[in-house]
Structures are given as structure tokens and as C-alpha cells.
């Protein structure tokens, strides 16, 4: 729709309080979160601690607790909260007319940025 933003599908695909994943060929897998309060966030799907898949953690408020060692990561900033130190990269996201968009330039790895990323629907498991 708008060149700068990549449409990744309707908001209804992610139940509030959960996250779903978006693998990127040649790049880092992205976790798209939907909080209980209805906000959406996108982060690289890796905990800064031991690279645990944040998408599988418990989402509460606007943070997620990593499933491996229970580090709490802010969905807004990607920063580890509490005593822990570290940061997970975030991907700019916006919601428009019940669809989710990611900032295209933040999704694609540097060298491939010249190519337009395309979205392939996932095959249902």
C-alpha cells in the first residue's frame, strides 16, 4: 500500500497477550507482540541474555518475560528491565485499518535493502 511500510497482515491474527513470529530470509526473525491493552510491537525474536525466543514468553503490561531465564524485556524499547542489562533491537510498527505494518527498511538486512522484501503467507502447520 505505502512503499515505506510492509503490510504483514490483519491485527486479528495475533491474540492479545501473545506474539507471533516472522522469519526473514537472510535476517533476524521478528516477533510481533499484541499486548492485553491492544498495543502492537515488533522486536527481534532474541533475548539479549542467551538469545531465548521472546515470542514464547508471557506478555504482561508492555513487557515480555523471556521463556529461558525469565528476563523481563520492554516491548517499547527492547531494554532489559530490573537489574538486568541488555537490549533487543525493535522494529518500527504501525497499525492502520486493522492491519499491521512494519518499517520496510528496518526489516530487511543491510545488503539486501535495495531489493523489495516480499511477504509469503506461512503454510499452516
Amino acid at each position, binding site marked *: 500500500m505505502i512503499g515505506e511500510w510492509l503490510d504483514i497482515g490483519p491485527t486479528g491474527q495475533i491474540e492479545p497477550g501473545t506474539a507471533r513470529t516472522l522469519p526473514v530470509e537472510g535476517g533476524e526473525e521478528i516477533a510481533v507482540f499484541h499486548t492485553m491493552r491492544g498495543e502492537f510491537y515488533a522486536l527481534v525474536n532474541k533475548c539479549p541474555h*542467551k538469545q531465548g525466543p521472546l515470542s*514464547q514468553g508471557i506478555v*504482561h503490561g508492555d513487557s515480555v518475560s523471556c521463556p529461558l531465564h525469565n528476563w523481563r524485556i520492554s516491548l517499547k524499547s527492547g531494554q532489559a528491565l530490573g537489574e538486568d542489562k541488555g537490549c533487543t533491537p525493535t522494529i518500527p510498527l504501525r497499525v492502520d485499518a486493522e492491519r499491521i505494518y512494519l518499517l520496510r527498511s528496518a526489516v530487511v538486512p543491510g545488503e539486501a535493502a535495495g531489493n523489495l522484501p516480499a511477504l509469503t503467507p506461512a503454510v499452516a502447520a
Partner: protein
Amino acid sequence: MNAPPDFSGAATPRERLVVIGNGMAGCRAIEEIIERDPDRFDVVIFGAEPRVNYNRIMLSPVLAGEKTFDEIVINGPEWYKDNGIMLVSGDPVVHVDRQAQQVVARSGRVESYDRLLIATGSDPFVIPVAGHDLPGVVTFRDLDDVEKMLSAADAGGSAIVIGGGLLGLEAAHGLSLRGMQVTVLHLMPSLMERQLDEAAGWLLKTELERRGQTILTGADTEAMIENDGHVAGVRLKDGREIPADIVVMAVGIRPNIALAKSAGLEVGRGIVVDDHMVTSDPAILSVGECVEHRGACYGLVAPLWEMCRALADGLVADPTGYAGSVTSTKLKVSGIDLFSAGDFSGGDDCEDIVMRDASRGVYKRVIVKDGKLVGAVLYGDTSDGNWYFDLLKRGEDVSDIREALIFGQAFASGGALADPDAAVAALSDDAEICGCNGVSKGQVVGCIAGGAHSVDAVRSTCKASASCGSCTNLVEALLTISLGEDAVESGPKTLCKCTSFTHDDVRRLILEKSLKAIPEVMHELHWTTPDGCSSCRPALNYYLLCAWPGEYKDDEKSRFVNERLHANIQKDGTYSVVPRMWGGITNPTELRAIADVTEKYNARMVKVTGGQRLDIFGIRKEDLPAVWADLNAAGMVSGHAYGKSLRTVKTCVGSEWCRFGTQDSTGLGVKLEQMSWGSWMPHKFKMAVSGCPRNCAEATIKDFGVVCVDSGYELHIGGNGGIHVRATDLLCKVETEQEAMETCAAFIQLYREDAHYLERTAPWLERKGLEWIKAQLFDDPESVPTLAARFRCSQSFMQEDPWAKRAAGERADLHSHLAEIRPLKLETAS
């Protein structure tokens, strides 16, 4: 001397201002311009609707029968006449020629302009499902829509409103008052999720249901049902069909940018304007719901007024500029007080202050960031809404009144009373502290003087704050006032930082107050966070599951990943899978299936576990359902190696093979496992059965261990082989296998009902004492059968293989990616 004659009015002909859109924004802009300079423009307004300008946000009261159309007209015909405005209604503009500075209407009418104002507003968003254009499917945007709804309501029957946002709920309320049976379908699990947090959404849903509406959340519309060329209902994606005589779509609005776009103006989501509401063409301005300003589009009325002021200032006076709006929302449903403003999504640098008063049905939450109020959600008592909104818009530092902020303006602005302790000290001795138990301040103070030096001690002596907990802060303040801050003793550990209650309190209150959902527990027990944390959510989910077997709906998002995906997450993000092998016995079919799965899904390792099972390592979450389908096909079910649940029953070969064996230990192990598999527990629970006192199955370091002897069965409890090795205590000795199983079931149920979440049997036994457990089980001969019966009742709902459900496609969203992103190589045609 005569002053020089003023010819300015005659010398400069008026500029011509054409307005596209006779709605609230277009007309308000003209009002603002006329107020500043009544002689500047000749105005022509084009309206698509064949009527004068009315207050669109008051359509809800018209639908509800609380107002008539005449009452919501803003500008009647005389306003146009008095101000020399030409109104062209019912003839929408279809083309803008920027070169010639002309607009063309549908009738062919052409008007030239010096300045053009586009105020086309927004269009209702229609979900493009099959049948969306059938007669009887309406939107809720203008008076025509309201009239269609009213004529449907006259015939009675039932209505469906798709969309549980502000507009949808107002439509539902109106139709309901007009006597229709109303069902609201909302895609999200919580109503008005953009304005309300989960807690307030839950209160709203409860109230609307009490008023007779049916609210279906998580309802995804698949298609309209047709009958005789008219809509007859809605079919949901889950297959449910709901009949209705009229369907109202109120899922949202989209800025109407078609005209601007075809004219070549810069558009994003809306028509892009600068701070003076000027579009990419300096001769063309735009205001209202159709614009995009600094990346934001608005669908509420207050920003409109601010935009119109900035537009008029920029056009005919000193430019002031529009800086964007902070918005607030009130639901126009009589009898429901609901207010939301600003940003309530919180954040690490934000501080949430929550107050819940369950007995009055009040929920208040304010969000403070960098010492400033940034958001507020109020339900049940919105009297301070405007005060909060004012603080929010002014961006004043509220640090000084932070402690008292949640109590509202009267309290926080009271000078000395801004110190909550001082406010409590100022209360009279007769003042009621605890409404639930009717305890006065004097009684609490007396109880503290009598030696209750902690909140918990106060709760157990005079009952203040022991029920809903909303007065805990008052009790704390009284302790501080009476004893000084340092002398207040802290009580037993609370469940987590979100509550002042302990595990035991929460379990007791869930039963006493019949609480049956997580948001309900959080509301009734005055949780201080909006949706809990990773400690309390899984605990509450377990407590509710244990308290209301068969009735409580498991909340998967409150479970740790292993229990959500029914497999064990490993450090690389893959999973390990342990199929159940009853009593540790397997056979060639099962072994072949495990071997096949291992090869087929490239599992990197198979390992024998400590509990005598086989663990397949390195399975991707996407492959789990297929792996389970293959294992199910060989007759195996989930081994629950991932759960706070019955894990395994380890056995030795017993009297069937072993020359020392005294009883059929493998047989009993299989029976125990078949009785108890699938049960959720406070923590993991391991069992073992050894055929003789040589104890090859290591039964004396299990949660429940059986050691067979010639004369019967010794039953052992509370063992643990973990960090702190603990040998079991002997619970009792029984003579028959049947008694052993019955006692096992009763012990498990006692543990399930009493232990804290994440407390193994070993620390639980040490906390409660072996004698207490024995007394609970054996003092009354009815205890064992009663507890065992409750366990079997719970098990009748639990023994469904979770793997089979997933293999059949349930919750496929948990196992699949949203999509995949691949860089696309541009191919040129040769």
C-alpha cells in the same frame, strides 16, 4: 478635516472559498473564519447529504430515542442565509481541477475557487465479507443509517452489531433500548481495547450483559447469511451462526481521501496537512477526520475544533498553528460511566497507579511518566475525568501530589491532605475503614494498640482489609501513624508485587467470592497492575483451574511456554518431546514410531530420562503438531514432561520377573499413571513404585512413592531428588492396591488444593508438617474418599490428550509463523 473614505470593501472583491463537506468540521471552520473576518470570503458549501449541518456525534442519542433530529441540528437554514453562504446539498463534488481552480459536482455544476477547503470526513469501514452489500447490512455514520436502524427496530426481532468499539456499543445500546435483542460481535477479546485496558473492558462487558445484550468477543466474521435476498444473520469463522434481522457494521472509520488523491494532493492515511491545515497545494486546505497531521489521524470531535481554530487563524488572522491533540473518550451509554484519555499503554518509564473498589464497581488507573500525568482510564466513577484530562493537557508536574493523585481532585488538591497519611490521621474515629467487614478507624487503631503490628495481624484480628483488600493502603497508613514507619512489621510474603494478598488469601477468596476468571480476580482483589505479571498470571490460572474443574476455561496466554506448546523449550529455541510410556513400559510399535519421528523431523538426539521415558530433542515449534500426529498414530499420548503436573511413574519389574519382588509394582505403577495423568498441579509431581524394600525405582525421593512389602504397601510422601535432596516421610501402610490408589488420589488432591503455586511437595510438607497432612487425611474417615472423589471429578475433565487436539489443528496459530519475509529480486521482462 474629513477622513479619507474607506473604499477597501468595494475595491477588493471578496475571495471565493469553496468547502467540500457540509459536516461538523467544514461548518465549524467557516464559523471560525466568519468570527475573525466576516467579509473576507464568499462561501459555497457542497454537502453529500440532502440536509443542513448537524451534530454527528449526537446520532447515538437519536438512535436511543433520547434526542430528535431537530435537536441535533447545529446550523439551520437561517445560518446559511444570514451569513450569505450558498449551500449545495445532495450534490457531492466529484472532481477538483487544481489547474483551473474549479470543482465539478455530480450534477455537472462547476464552481471556481480562490481557496478550497476539503472536509470530506471519513467513511465507515465495511468488512469485505460475502454478503456485506445485502439489504439489511448497514453502517452507523449518518442519519440515513439511523433511519434504517429505526425502521428495523419498529419490526422488532434481533440485531447484530459488528464492532465493540465506541460506535458499535452506542449502536447496540440504542437498538437494545428500541426493544431489539442485540448481539455484539467483537474481534478482539476485550471491548473498546483502544480506549480501555482489559480490566475496564471486563467491567463494561459484565454491565452490558447484565442489561441483556449478548457480547461475543474473539468473534471473527466470515460471511453474512442470506435469506430471500435480505441479510438473515452472521456466520463466524469458528462455524457459529447467529440469526439477525439487521446487521450493523461499526468496525471503524477511514479518512475519505479519494477526492484529494485523485486531485494529486499528497496523502498518507489521510490528506497530509501542515500546522495551518494547508495541504501540499497552498490554495487547498483541509480539516477534520480526513486529514493526517504529523502522522496522526483523529476520529473524535475535540481535535476538529482545535484544527478549525488553527485553520482560521492561519487563513485570516495571526497564524497560531495546530500542534496535534490529546484526546479523551466518554461512552454515551446512559448509566455507564466510562472515561479514557491519553496514553494508557504504559511503559518501563511509566508508573501505573491503580485503584479498584469492587463493592462500588469502580476502577481507576492513571499513568505517570517523568512526573507528568500521561493517561487515565476511569470506570464507574468518572467525576475526576476532566480534572485528569486537564492535568494531562497542561503537562504539569504532578510529583507533589503523586501519592494522592488516584483519590481525585478533592483529595489531591487539599493542601496538607496531599499527604495520604495526614489525610488518614485526620479521619474521625468513627470513620469506616473497611466497608466489607464494617471496621471503623477506632477499631483498627485499637487492634494495632493491642499488638497487631502488621497488615496481616490486623486482618486476622479485626478483619479490616481481609476481604477485598481495597482498604489495605488505609490500614498501612494507620499502622505507620500509630507505630512509626520502622515499627510496622511485614507480614507473610504476598503472591507477587501486584497484590497485597498471600497465596493462601487468594485461594481462599477465589472460593469465598466465587471468582471464576483472571480479570475478575484482579478486579475483586484490587490488583495494583492492570494485567498482572509473569508470576501471578500462571498462579491464578492454576488456582482457578483447581477451584472450578470443568467450568474454568484455561487461559493459555497465562501459561509458561512449555505448557502452552506441550513440549520443553531448549536453549536453542527448539523443543523436546516425551511421549507417555505407562509405568515405563514400551513395545516395538512405540519404539518404531519414536525412531521414525526422530529421522523424519531431524531430531538431533534421543535420550532416556531419569523418569524412564524417551526424550526426542531438537523439534521445531512448527513441526510439533505433525510429530504428535505421528506419535498419536502409534497409540502414544502426551507425556507431560513439560508441565506442572503428573510427570511419570517410575517402576521396577516387581513380582512378575524379579526374584525378590513382593507385589506387581509395574502393574500398580501403570494404574497410578493412568489414574493421575493429565492433572495440573502446583508444581511437577513424580511418583514411583518399587517392588521390594531394595527400592530400585527410587520411590523414597519422589513426591509420592510406594514401596511394596510382603504384607502390603508402604506409602511415602514429600521426597525430592533436586537441589536439596530430601527422603520421603512414611505416610501410612495399607494392605490392598485399591487402598494405595485411593490414598494416592486423596494426597494429590490435598496437595493440589493447599500448596502454593510452584511449591513442590517437599517444601510444602515441611511448611505444613507431616502431622497436619496426616490429620487432614486420616482424622476423619470420610476425608480420603471425599478428596479422592474430588480428584476423580477434576480428572474427568483433564484426561484429554492435548497433543491430539493440536494434531487435529487446534490453535494452529501457536505453531505457525505469521508469514515469511524474503528479499525479492526484481525481474525485468526480456
